């Protein structure tokens, strides 16, 4: 950045009038002195004065200790207006000024600094926190390397449409920044690293610019579709005293944007199609942002007596409702409305990773002529590079709009559009679905009973033993990573929005542990009981977040789905070996080389214990599982995190 106050140029670095620069300067000066004498000639420009020569080639003058309010104190004033409760963060020098202001000037409140041992953990915590609370957190990351650590978690947040406010410290001024390590950690444009998967970014060059951009980035992140935002914050700007340049600094007031609702013409057309459909189906992924969204979806589904396929990006629709149905109901649909789907193509088409040559092929899952309606706010923020927008699906009505904000108008339009003479048929449709729902529920329980007493423990047994221990709590399943055959969503009576927070979004492994801790932090303050189904591979990406949970007394029950491998990859390698008629090489493991996490088996319970958790395991006998979880629940209710290491079946 270029300070507007010329006096600041020298004052930028109080500690770093470095010897390294002085050394460079002494090697330059003698050349000027040794230049051969030349006849006097008319110069094309005035020669530099001695002062200019010194400024350009000499050692920067040691700055005086300037008085005044540090810029970073003003930044804390700005941050505090947005009521950000926590700041999970891995400390770094490029934001030392803001760090110091937050904990000393700001009193370490709103936000409270929370020590993280990895930037990915910090962003993952913010991700989980938002989904449990509806409130965003901010984090600070070190210019280049810290942001590189954070980037996968930012991508997950982007794909999951979750706001995270990321501020990266960066030393922009090459003449005055510390040489050596801090310069390795600086870049012209750190935001470029994550620009493809953030909603907005900026690099403020003055305190007032910071104030405007910070409020803007908060508002942008919190406007549906939500998403992460990024600010590169110059280290010098943080450290300099505030100079008001004749105008008093101000903090812009935050006024939230309204969510973008669908065009009324498109809403009415969608209502007409749904009202006249014989077999309408509602498919939802991240449609319900709040409990209000869940309630609106119930109203829509009951009005139509239409089955709802919940793809579980969020807890969109109560699992206890008879209209909650499995995905195969779309095969008979004549109209499908998809709301906030991450992949509409994948809803109506299948991809089989096989075929005669093992190359894979596509196939339709729906009847010819089925009409498709889409309400999807992500259309408003589609970018080019990363392919999270999935394959292109032609639809008959497309509303680039927020589903939850559009639902009230759609419901009202539907009430008008349903002809009186169709109401009996619609009610009859509901009765048919109610019977199918009861049968389906029994079939799920029959499937869960198979291998009930198996060891390693079946994922159905794992799921129900957990539920049996927490069913009387105000529970929240904050994450379920590693794939337990979707049993919680099939068996647990979820009807509240916070009872299932969805998955990572971008399927970047390593989300589950930090997101669980972040969500448990939010749930702690809201009086809820947090439980996660924690997979082995996911935990080992950045297990240090366990320490953060213990440090800040974040109560979380983590029950491990420890199948001792990267199981998705286990199956991929087996698949490829089969296609090629080769016996897969497993060396001494149970799974193909490169996919097993065994020999030695990781003692996750000891890992957790070492970081301050109550822990138990490994549990391999299903008969011992219930008692262990019960013990752990008591620990969590006392305000501590607890982990049970359970050896499970693969899926």
């Amino acid at each position: 950045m270029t300070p507007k106050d010329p006096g600041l140029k020298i004052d930028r670095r109080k500690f770093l009038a470095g010897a390294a620069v002085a050394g460079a300067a002494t090697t330059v000066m003698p050349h000027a002195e040794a230049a051969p004498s030349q006849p006097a000639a008319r110069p094309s420009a005035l020669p530099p004065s001695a002062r200019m020569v010194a400024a350009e080639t000499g050692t920067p003058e040691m700055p005086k200790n300037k008085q005044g309010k540090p810029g970073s104190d003003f930044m804390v004033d700005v941050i505090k207006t947005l009521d950000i409760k926590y700041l999970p963060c891995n400390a770094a020098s490029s934001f030392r000024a803001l760090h110091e202001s937050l904990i000393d000037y700001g009193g370490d409140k709103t936000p409270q600094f929370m020590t993280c041992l990895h930037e990915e953990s910090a962003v993952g915590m913010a991700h989980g926190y938002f989904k449990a609370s509806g409130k965003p957190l901010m984090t600070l990351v070190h210019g280049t390397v810290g942001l590189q650590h954070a980037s996968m978690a930012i991508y997950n947040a982007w794909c999951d449409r979750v706001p995270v406010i990321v501020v990266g410290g960066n030393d922009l001024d090459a003449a005055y920044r510390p040489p050596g390590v801090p310069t390795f950690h600086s870049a012209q444009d750190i935001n470029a690293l994550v620009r493809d998967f953030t909603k907005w970014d900026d690099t403020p060059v003055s305190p007032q610019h910071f104030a405007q951009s910070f409020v803007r980035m908060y508002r942008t992140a919190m406007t549906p579709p939500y998403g992460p935002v990024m600010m590169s914050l110059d280290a010098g700007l943080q450290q300099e005293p505030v100079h008001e340049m004749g105008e008093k600094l101000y903090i812009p007031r935050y006024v939230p944007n309204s969510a973008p609702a669908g065009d009324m013409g498109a809403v009415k057309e969608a209502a007409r199609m749904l009202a006249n459909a014989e077999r309408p189906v509602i498919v939802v992924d991240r449609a319900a942002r709040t409990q209000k969204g869940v309630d609106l979806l119930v109203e829509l589904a009951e009005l139509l007596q239409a089955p709802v396929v919940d793809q579980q990006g969020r807890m969109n629709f109560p699992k206890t409702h008879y209209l909650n149905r499995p995905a195969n109901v779309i095969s008979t649909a004549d109209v499908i409305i998809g709301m906030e789907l991450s992949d509409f193509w994948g809803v109506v088409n299948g991809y089989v990773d096989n075929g005669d040559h093992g190359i894979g092929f596509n196939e339709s899952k729906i009847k010819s002529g089925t009409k498709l309606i889409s309400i999807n706010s992500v259309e408003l923020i589609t970018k080019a590079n990363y392919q999270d927008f999935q394959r292109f699906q032609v639809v008959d009505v497309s509303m680039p709009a927020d589903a939850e904000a559009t639902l009230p108008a759609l419901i009202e339009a539907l009430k008008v559009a349903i002809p009186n003479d169709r109401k009996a048929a619609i009610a009859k449709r509901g009765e048919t679905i109610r019977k199918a729902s009861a049968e389906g529920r029994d079939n799920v329980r029959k499937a869960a009973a198979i291998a009930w007493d198996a060891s390693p423990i079946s994922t159905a047994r794992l799921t129900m033993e957990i539920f049996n221990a927490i069913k009387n709590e105000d529970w929240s399943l904050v994450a379920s990573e590693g794939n337990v055959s979707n049993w919680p969503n099939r068996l647990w009576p979820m009807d509240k929005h916070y009872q299932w927070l969805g998955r990572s979004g971008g399927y970047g492994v390593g989300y589950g542990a930090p997101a669980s801790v972040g969500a448990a932090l939010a749930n702690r303050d809201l009086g809820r009981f947090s439980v996660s189904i924690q997979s082995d591979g996911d935990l080992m990406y950045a297990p240090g977040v366990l320490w953060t949970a213990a440090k800040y007394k974040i109560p979380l029950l983590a029950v491990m789905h420890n199948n001792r491998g990267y199981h998705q990859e286990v199956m991929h390698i087996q698949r490829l070996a089969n296609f090629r008629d080769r016996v897969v090489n497993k060396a001494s493991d149970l799974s193909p080389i490169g996919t097993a996490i065994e020999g030695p088996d990781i003692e996750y319970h000891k890992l957790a214990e070492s970081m301050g958790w109550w822990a138990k395991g490994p549990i391999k006998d299903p008969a011992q599982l219930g008692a262990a979880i019960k013990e752990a629940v008591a620990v969590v209710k006392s305000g501590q995190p607890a982990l049970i290491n359970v050896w499970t079946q693969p899926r």
Partner: protein
Amino acid sequence: MSSMRVYFSSAVVAASLIFGAGAAFAASAEKGKAAFVSNGCWQCHGFDGQGSAITSNGKVLAPDPMPYETFEAFVRGTNRAMPPYREAILSKVDLEDIYAYLQSIPAGKSFKDIPMLSQHE
């Protein structure tokens, strides 16, 4: 791997079994269990053949496996989600043993006899 096998719960019966419509041949459920693991069948179907809504589309191999002829034809020639196991990588004897293992897996409890499931709405 060896520690894993200790925990298999199903009774394994080494026996001569009769498959299919009158076709008689010897097969070992014990060897079949080992082959079920070493050939990676467990990866999608679970160690007890219980299947998964995610990895086997809900298909359950045991108890009550499908007729052997259907089983063999599917394993050898599938071109759907499951990759084929041709004879180059899975011998006929091993496949028969695997089938014997699947047949040996006893039926578990009914969900109606499991309070966590039967009392769960």
